[in-house]
């Protein structure tokens, strides 16, 4: 049974931590997104043809959103659990009558909330540079929330696995960001020469970017249901890993 008061305490405290650095947390993605739009949208985009009937500046919005979403969600969540482990304050969580439910909903929920706030900010920023509309807004919100949940869980696992700051940063830096860049953020997979268009399908981020792009413009490189399926499978896998971690106490309890 979930203790909702405990959950709310964890959730609000994590959000407070976010608000303490709100200026940096909000300004950085706004600035980065603006730069991407200036460089790719205005400078290069003006010379690019429409892709699937979508203006290039608008085409890159879902990819840019995914780029920020994956990076911020993973790092927020991983830092959220790693810092208490690093500073020793995790004793309070472990000695409290809270289980995996309260912990996950609290930490992951807060990481999701932060990411959704950032997603909204990025979409508003994009509006300053590009005119776009969202074909399936409800599905877009659901999809963004699913991806945020999945990568919050992934970040949570990362924060428990890491035993130093280097490990904490290595996965997002060496894997997530490159895979997102190569996952069709700035181009359609159809634009790649053979056999790279097939090889690109081995990159799981392709399905995420493609899925979000479908909710925006109604067309994508990959079938939307495959994207949903892969996202849900990733979510389930991460949940399973976390359940195992809590059951065994791996890296949490001595």
């Amino acid at each position: 049974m979930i203790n909702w008061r405990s959950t709310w305490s964890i959730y609000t405290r994590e959000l407070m931590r976010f608000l303490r650095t709100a200026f940096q947390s909000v300004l950085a993605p706004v600035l980065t997104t603006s730069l991407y739009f200036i460089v790719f949208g205005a400078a290069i985009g003006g010379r690019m043809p429409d892709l699937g009937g979508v203006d290039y500046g608008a085409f890159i919005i879902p990819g840019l959103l995914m780029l920020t979403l994956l990076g911020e969600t993973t790092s927020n969540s991983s830092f959220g659990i790693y810092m208490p482990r690093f500073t020793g304050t995790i004793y309070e969580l472990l000695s409290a009558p809270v289980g995996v439910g309260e912990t996950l909903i609290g930490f992951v929920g807060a990481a999701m909330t932060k990411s959704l706030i950032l997603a909204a900010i990025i979409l508003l920023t994009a509006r300053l540079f590009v005119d776009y509309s969202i074909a399936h807004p409800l599905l877009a919100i659901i999809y963004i929330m699913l991806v945020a949940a999945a990568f919050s869980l992934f970040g949570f696992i990362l924060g428990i696995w890491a035993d130093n700051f280097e490990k904490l940063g290595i996965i997002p830096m060496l894997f997530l960001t490159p895979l997102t860049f190569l996952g069709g953020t700035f181009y359609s997979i159809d634009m790649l020469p053979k056999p790279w268009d097939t090889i690109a399908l081995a990159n799981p981020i392709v399905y995420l970017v493609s899925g979000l792009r479908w909710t925006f413009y109604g067309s994508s490189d990959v079938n939307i249901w495959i994207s949903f399926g892969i996202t849900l499978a990733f979510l389930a896998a991460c949940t399973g890993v976390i359940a195992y971690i809590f059951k065994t106490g791996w890296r949490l309890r001595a």
Partner: protein
Amino acid sequence: MSTPPQWLPWQSRSAILSPEPILELEGLTKVYPGGLKALDDVDLIIRRGEIFALLGPNGAGKTTLIGAVCGLVRPTSGTMRVFGHDLATEWRKARSRIGLVPQELSTDMFEPVKRAVAYSRGLFGLPPNPERIEEILRSLSLWEKRDERIMALSGGMKRRVLIAKALAHEPDLLFLDEPTAGVDVELRKGMWRIIDEMRDRGVTVILTTHYIEEAEEMADRVGIISGGRILMVDEKDAMMSRLGRTEAHITLAQPLDALPPELCKFPVELEDGGHKLCYRGGDGTGKGKEEVAALTKALIAAGIDYTGIDTRESSLEDIFVTLLGEDGETA
């Protein structure tokens, strides 16, 4: 300001202890992955309302024992019951009544004091209660600092914040892991007052320490742990009574070649070439002092003059050292 604690005679405090066990450990064993046996078949019962001091040298297993009860350490085997709840199956009910003040100053240093304490209360599933938080902060002389970030406080105050956090959910059983480690004498005595106040409120306190004087000053019962094994658990006074000794050195005016028959009934021996008569006896209850008085009368009756008497009661520290020495020999 906090209310000064009411100091009662320790003897009477021990007498009012409830025999009801609130913590029962049976066969508790913890072997770390590297093979280190931190706890070795520990059996322990803690009674409601007492202050129990767990004494032991560094690495004895004190923190591991606390960690096992509080959910920080996974025991290898054994059972733990808190307020009748099995910690393996009813851990939520059990943990909701336990508070922990860790040895390290571990808390979010950027957080203001009041918010940190309120968070702890919420984490344990209790509804917000600003009056209760204020009461706790005032009792620990932290109310004036309620809006300050913890990082801005002194070491002693930070430790008090940890105590406030541990008390925020109104626990019935409080673990204090080395509460006075690294603090000066004044702060240490202040901490003793705080612990005493907690006991007056009905909180059962288990504290670990390697300061013998702390256990001697505070505890109703003392447990001595070494190498993961509980060597002895007893009422402090009973332990002193059973293992305590009186030692008296009587400097004689004239050296003796041998003990006169009148003195043979006393546990005495000649030392320093017959210049000193040494008494070692008693049981820590005052019997030793009475025997030394009788001995001096016997000396006078026998016409043996003396120029000085130096007496000393053995402390808990002597008992501790003796026990650990014996344990080292038998290990």
